[in-house]
C-alpha cells in the first residue's frame, strides 16, 4: 500500500449560526486506503465531507489534494479534482436507464450521448469493481443496493480518485453490504482512496485500513484499524471526559409510581424492516431514564412508537395504566406524552409556520384555542406571548416563522409547547444536539425542572456525558434491543461504550 497522501485537510473550522460544526479538524487520506470516518451524529462528519466535496467552504483551514492546495466552490470543482461523493439519498432519475444516469450532468460532455459507448464503459467499470448492474436497465427496476451501485458508477465514470460514501450500509441488506465492502476493497487496491463514513463499529473494523474518530467537531485521533479494537474505537467515540458532574436533584425520582410502561413492543422502520425487538421499559414519576446507543439502533423508532407517530407491531404502551393507541399521536398527546423529537424543525415544528401557530400545534383542538372548529386567533396570540415571555424565546414577534429563529430559540419554542402542556411523560431525543453552550445549559435545566415536578423523562441521546450527568438510570440500545440497564450513579463508561458497540454485557464487564 502506497503511503502517498491523496487528501490532507488541516485545521478545518466551519461555523454555522450558533454552532461550530468543525472546530479544527485534521484528516489525512492516503492513496489506496479505505479510511473510515467515525463519530456520532453531530460530530462533524457530514460537514467535513461537504467541505471536501465543495458544498461548503471552510471558515479556516486548508484542503490539499495530491499536495496541491485547493479551494472548491462547487461539487463539480471537487469532482474535477477527482473527489466524488456517493450520497445516502440517491440522486437518480427513476425513468432513465443506468447509462443515462451515469452520464447525466457530466461536465464537458457532448449534448448527445453515445449510448453504446457509455454502456460499454459502464460495463467495464462494473466488471472491474464487482458492481453488477445492467447499463440498459431503468432505475425504477433496480433494488436499493443496485441503485447505490449506480451512484458509485456515476462517480467512477467521472474519474474520481477519492470516493466518499456517506453511511452506505444504512440502506443495504447484510449480503449487499458484504458485496459493497468487496467493491471498496477493490477500488482501494487500484490506488483509489475511499472515505467511509459510518457510526457502526463492526463495519468499520471489517472494512477500513485506518480510522479517524471525530467528536464534537474535533479530531480525536487517527488509528490503524489493525492496531485497535471495537472497544478502543468505542472509547474514542464516547470520550473520556471526567469533567461532568451528576446533577443534584431537588425532588428525587419516585419509582414507586410508574408513569410510562412499555411492554414487549416491536416496530418496523420506514422501510418496513423490523427495527425494534421486544422492548420493555418503565419510567417512574420524576425519573429521568437515559437511553444510550449509537444512532440507528432503534432509538428513533422507540421515541416514535411511544409518541404515537409510528405503529407498533407488537406489545403495548400505557401511561399510568391508560393505553396509548398504537400509531395514534392524538392518543399519546391525550394521555399526556410530550415529545421533543430529534428533528426539531421539520418534525417537532412546522418550519414555515409562525411561532404562535407552532405553540398551538398540539392544543389547537382544545376549547381554549378553538370553538365550533373555528380558531380563536386572539387566544393563540395570547398563549404565544405568554410562553415566549416565560420561556425566554428570542423572536422579533410571535408571527415570525420559526425557521428564521436560531437553533436555540427553535428548541425553546418546542420545549415551551411541550412543557406547558403539563405532560406526565416527556420523550426527549437528542434535545441538546447542535445547540451552543448556553442553550444546552438552559435545555438541561428545563429537563431537570420537569423531572422535579414529577414528569417521567425518557432522555434519548448519543451524548453519554449528558446521559450520565442527568439520568437516574441508563438503558443501552443495540440493534433494536435494550441490552443493558444500569443505575447512572457510578455507571462504568467503558462498559456502556462497549455494549453500545455490540459487546454483550458479560464481555463488557470482563
Amino acid at each position, binding site marked *: 500500500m502506497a503511503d502517498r497522501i491523496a487528501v490532507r485537510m488541516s485545521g478545518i473550522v466551519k461555523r454555522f449560526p450558533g454552532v461550530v460544526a468543525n472546530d479544527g479538524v485534521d484528516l489525512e487520506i492516503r492513496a489506496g486506503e479505505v479510511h473510515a470516518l467515525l463519530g456520532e451524529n453531530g460530530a462533524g462528519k457530514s460537514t467535513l465531507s461537504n467541505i471536501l466535496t465543495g458544498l461548503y467552504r471552510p471558515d479556516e483551514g486548508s484542503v490539499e489534494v495530491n499536495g496541491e492546495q485547493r*479551494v472548491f*466552490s*462547487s461539487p*463539480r470543482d471537487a469532482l474535477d479534482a477527482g473527489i466524488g461523493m456517493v450520497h445516502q439519498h440517491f440522486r437518480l432519475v427513476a425513468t432513465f436507464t443506468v447509462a443515462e444516469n451515469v452520464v447525466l450532468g457530466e*461536465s464537458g460532455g457532448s449534448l448527445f450521448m453515445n449510448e453504446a459507448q457509455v454502456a460499454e464503459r459502464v460495463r467495464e467499470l462494473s466488471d472491474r469493481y464487482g458492481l453488477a448492474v445492467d447499463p440498459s436497465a431503468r432505475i425504477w427496476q433496480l433494488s436499493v443496493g443496485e441503485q447505490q451501485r449506480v451512484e458509485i458508477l456515476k462517480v467512477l465514470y467521472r474519474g474520481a480518485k477519492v470516493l466518499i460514501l456517506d453511511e452506505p450500509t444504512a440502506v443495504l441488506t447484510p449480503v449487499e453490504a458484504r458485496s459493497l465492502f468487496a467493491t471498496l476493497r477493490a477500488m482501494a487496491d487500484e490506488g483509489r482512496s475511499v472515505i467511509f463514513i459510518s457510526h457502526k463499529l463492526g463495519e468499520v473494523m471489517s472494512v477500513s485500513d485506518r480510522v479517524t474518530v471525530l467528536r464534537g467537531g474535533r479530531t480525536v485521533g487517527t488509528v490503524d484499524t489493525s492496531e485497535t479494537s471495537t472497544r478502543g474505537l468505542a472509547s474514542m467515540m464516547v470520550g473520556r471526559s471526567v469533567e461532568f458532574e451528576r446533577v443534584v436533584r431537588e425532588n428525587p425520582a419516585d419509582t414507586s409510581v410508574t408513569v410510562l410502561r412499555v411492554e414487549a413492543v416491536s416496530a418496523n422502520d420506514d422501510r418496513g424492516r423490523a427495527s425494534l425487538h421486544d422492548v420493555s421499559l418503565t419510567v417512574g414519576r420524576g425519573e429521568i431514564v437515559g437511553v444510550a446507543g449509537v444512532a440507528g439502533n432503534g432509538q428513533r423508532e422507540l421515541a416514535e412508537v411511544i*409518541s*404515537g*407517530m409510528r405503529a407498533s407491531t407488537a406489545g403495548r404502551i400505557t401511561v399510568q395504566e391508560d393505553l396509548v393507541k398504537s400509531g*395514534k*399521536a*392524538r*392518543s*399519546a*398527546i391525550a394521555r399526556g406524552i410530550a*415529545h421533543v*423529537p430529534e*428533528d426539531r424543525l*421539520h*418534525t*417537532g*415544528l*412546522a*418550519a*414555515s*409556520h409562525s411561532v404562535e*401557530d407552532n405553540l*398551538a*400545534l*398540539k392544543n*389547537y*383542538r382544545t376549547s381554549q384555542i*378553538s370553538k365550533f*372548529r*373555528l*380558531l380563536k*386567533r386572539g387566544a393563540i396570540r395570547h398563549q404565544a406571548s405568554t410562553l415566549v415571555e416565560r420561556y425566554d424565546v428570542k423572536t422579533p414577534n410571535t408571527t415570525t*416563522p420559526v*425557521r*428564521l429563529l436560531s437553533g436555540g430559540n427553535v428548541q425553546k419554542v418546542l420545549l415551551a409547547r411541550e412543557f406547558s402542556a403539563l405532560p406526565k411523560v416527556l420523550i426527549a431525543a437528542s434535545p441538546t444536539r447542535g445547540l451552543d453552550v448556553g442553550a444546552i445549559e438552559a435545555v438541561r435545566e428545563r429537563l431537570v425542572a420537569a423531572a422535579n415536578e414529577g414528569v417521567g423523562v425518557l432522555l434519548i441521546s448519543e451524548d453519554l456525558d449528558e446521559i450520565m450527568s442527568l439520568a437516574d438510570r441508563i438503558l443501552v440500545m443495540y440493534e433494536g434491543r435494550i441490552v443493558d440497564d444500569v443505575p447512572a450513579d457510578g455507571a462504568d463508561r467503558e462498559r456502556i461504550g462497549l455494549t453500545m458497540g455490540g459487546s454483550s454485557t458479560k464481555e463488557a464487564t470482563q
Partner: protein
Amino acid sequence: MRSPIRLERRLEQPKWLNWAVPLISLVAALVLGAIVLWLTGKNPIDVYHRIFERGFAGKQAFSGALEMATPLAFTGLCAAVAFRMGLINIGGEGQFYMGAIGAAWVGIAVSGTPTGITIALMCLAGMVFGSIYAAIVGILRAKFNTNEIITSLMMNYLAGILLNYLIFNSKSYWRNPDSPQFPKSKNIAARADWNTYKIFGIEMPIAFLIAMLAGVAIWFLYKRTRFGFEVSVIADSPKAARYAGIRTSSTIVIVLALSGALAGLGGAADVGNFRGLLDAKGLQMAGYGYTGIVVAALARRNPITTIFVAIFIGGLTKAGYSLQGPDFPSGLVGTLQGLILFTAVAGEILIKYRLRTNVSRAGAVVA
C-alpha cells in the same frame, strides 16, 4: 462555466413584494409585449388599447370577461385548494366533466321545482359527482401513496371517454334521442335555467356570484378553521402533522374531495348557466381544468385572488379572440398571453428568491 447570476432563497418575504412584484411583472410583460409587437410591425398602444377595450372596459366587454371567467374561477379554486396542501390536482378537467354530468342529470330530470331549488340541486349534484371523482385520487394517494398528478391526469382521460360514451356512443339517459344530425344531450328543463343578473348594466351570471362566494368560503376555511390549520401544517411538513396528531390521510381525501367539488360546481354552472345541456365536445375543447391550474398558480394559491385572476385571464382570452385576424396570427396572440404568464411566474420566483451575482466569488476562486 459558472453562471454569473444565481438565485438565493429569501429568508423573509417582505410584505411589499406581494403587491409590488405582480405590478412590476405586469409592467414587464407590457414592455416585453410592446417590443414583440413593434418588431412585428404593430402599434403596441393600439393593441393594448384593443385588449383593454374588448377584454375589460365597457359593460359588454366586462360581461363577456365574467362569462369566460366563471368556469376558470371554479377550476382555479379547485387547483388552489389542493395546492394549499401541496397536492397537485391536475384532475380539475375530469372533475368538471363529472360535475356537468351530475348537474345535467338533475337538470334534465327536474320538473316543476322552483328555479332556486333546481339551481341548488344541480349545484349539489355537480359537487357530489366532482368530489367523489376527486376523492378516488385522494384515496389512492392516502392509502397507496400513488402520485396524484398521474392518477388525476389519467382520470381526466377517463372522464372524457365517459362523456363521449354518454353522448356519442350510447343511448344513455343524457343522450337526446331526437338529434339525428349530431349526437347531443337532452336540454335541461326550463326551470333549471340559471339566472343571469344585470348589475349596473353588467351581465352577472349567478354562477359567478357562486364562485365568488366559494372563494370567500375557501379563504375562511383555510384561514380561520381548525381544518385549514391542519391543511397548512401538512403542507408545511407532513412529519410535523403526524407528530401533532393530525389525521393526514383523511385530510388528503377531504381536500381532494373539496377540490373536486369546486370543479364539479363549475361543471354544474357550465350546464345550468351557459350551455343548457351536456356538451360533450365543447367541454373537451374548452380545457377549463387545465387553464384553472394556471389561474391558481398565478393567484399564488390564494382563493380570493383566484377569482380576480380568473377575470383577468377571462378578459385576456376574450381580448385574444378579438385581436386575431389575417394580419394578427393567433400565434402572436398566444405569445402575448404567454409573456404575461411568464413574467408572472418569474415574479413569483423573485418573491421567493433574490438574485445574487457570483462575480466577486468567482474572482476569489481565480485568486
